[in-house]
């Protein structure tokens, strides 16, 4: 079904690039990665096409994909002590990572769905803009605000983009993987894992026996 929708969108929205993101888990909910420039046109087509009519956006989710370290090994011929030798060189580069917004679409009229749309930002630091789909589906308004609050994706074209859970002066994005929470730790009776590491750093409230 998703392949059919994909080719249909490509036929009707000029110049859009789509990609099917497969899901290998038992649920098999594959999704469509859409490009930001044509996102509004794609969304409008999915909502308005007579036989598709995806009139209900049930859920908008944010995902943080932090940058990974890419290790490349390359064999290079080099002069070592005047003799030409083949040396293996390891290059490490850091990929930028990206933030993702996921939309779940259903059709109330045609009783089908879901179709899952994904949009990705270019990186996680300065190019975190995505087009807002709130003009197409009103139900996305608060959820896009929540993603803006917790992940830091800026939705262009959103009617009222403010923080929704945290206060206005708050500067961090708590759902990002590299978020460091304020250090207001107190004693835990049964520390384990991350909490155990924290409790080792805080010995001012603990009397050793």
């Amino acid at each position: 079904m998703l392949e059919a929708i994909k080719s249909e969108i490509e036929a009707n929205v000029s110049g859009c690039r789509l990609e099917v993101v497969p899901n290998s888990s038992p649920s098999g909910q594959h999704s469509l990665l859409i490009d930001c420039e044509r996102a509004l046109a794609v969304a409008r087509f999915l909502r308005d096409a007579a036989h598709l009519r995806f009139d209900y956006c049930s859920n908008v989710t944010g995902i943080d994909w932090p940058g990974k370290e890419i290790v490349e090994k390359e064999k290079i011929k080099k002069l070592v002590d005047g003799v030409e030798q083949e040396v293996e060189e390891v290059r490490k580069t850091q990929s930028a990572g990206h933030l993702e917004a996921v939309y779940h679409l259903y059709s109330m009229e045609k009783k089908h769905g879901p179709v899952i749309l994904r949009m990705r930002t270019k990186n996680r630091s300065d190019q975190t803009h995505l087009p807002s789909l709130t003009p197409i589906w009103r139900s996305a308004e608060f959820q896009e605000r929540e993603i803006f609050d917790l992940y830091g994706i800026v939705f262009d074209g959103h009617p009222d983009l403010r923080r929704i859970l945290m206060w206005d002066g708050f500067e961090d994005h708590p759902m990002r993987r590299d978020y460091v929470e304020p250090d207001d730790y107190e004693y835990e009776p049964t520390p384990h894992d991350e909490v155990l590491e924290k409790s080792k750093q805080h010995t001012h409230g603990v009397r050793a026996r």
Partner: protein
Amino acid sequence: MDEQLKSELSKQGIFATSLQELYNWGRKNSLWPLNFGLACCAIEMIAATMARYDMARFGAEVFRPSPRQADLMIVAGTITKKMAPQIVRLYNQMPEPKYVISMGACAISGGPFKQGYNVLKGIDRYIPVDVYIPGCPPRPEALIDALMFLQKKIDSQQLTGADRARHLDPDAPSEFIVPQFGAHDLEPPQNPEIWRPPLVEISLAEKNDAGSD
């Protein structure tokens, strides 16, 4: 006053009491709670006031919509950091004498959200608490038990002397710092005058077994 003499007099139809007893009796039986709830504990608080549990039996049925008319603050539920300044401000607006019941795991310590980023780890970081009720959420019986405990506490308060009640001590503060929204956390994260991290004894040997070092 001698208890035996008092009971002897009452048998003769003479009622004798002290001003302190009368004062405490009046206050403990007309505790007016502030009408607000924060999370699921508030549902149990509502249930405690309804016909089945009937908190009105203890004189505490008049939930007031204004802090100016309330004696008792029942902090019922999860306190998010966004909500904490408003709670402290409401407490500051209540007239003395005032009491606080910290209801449920969240209001005591943050509860199941203790490791989260937006939940205050206990309201006692900002305001003094008289009675803590554990539970998630506590049953209405537990709230009524806490109320009766608070009544006993009020009944034993002294009007004069060094150990007199807090509201009769002119040096004891009646208002506390309202935390401000900071860039990363509430400022200050706790009021050091009333709350410090608890000093707890733990065995380091045991910790080494569980830990990596």
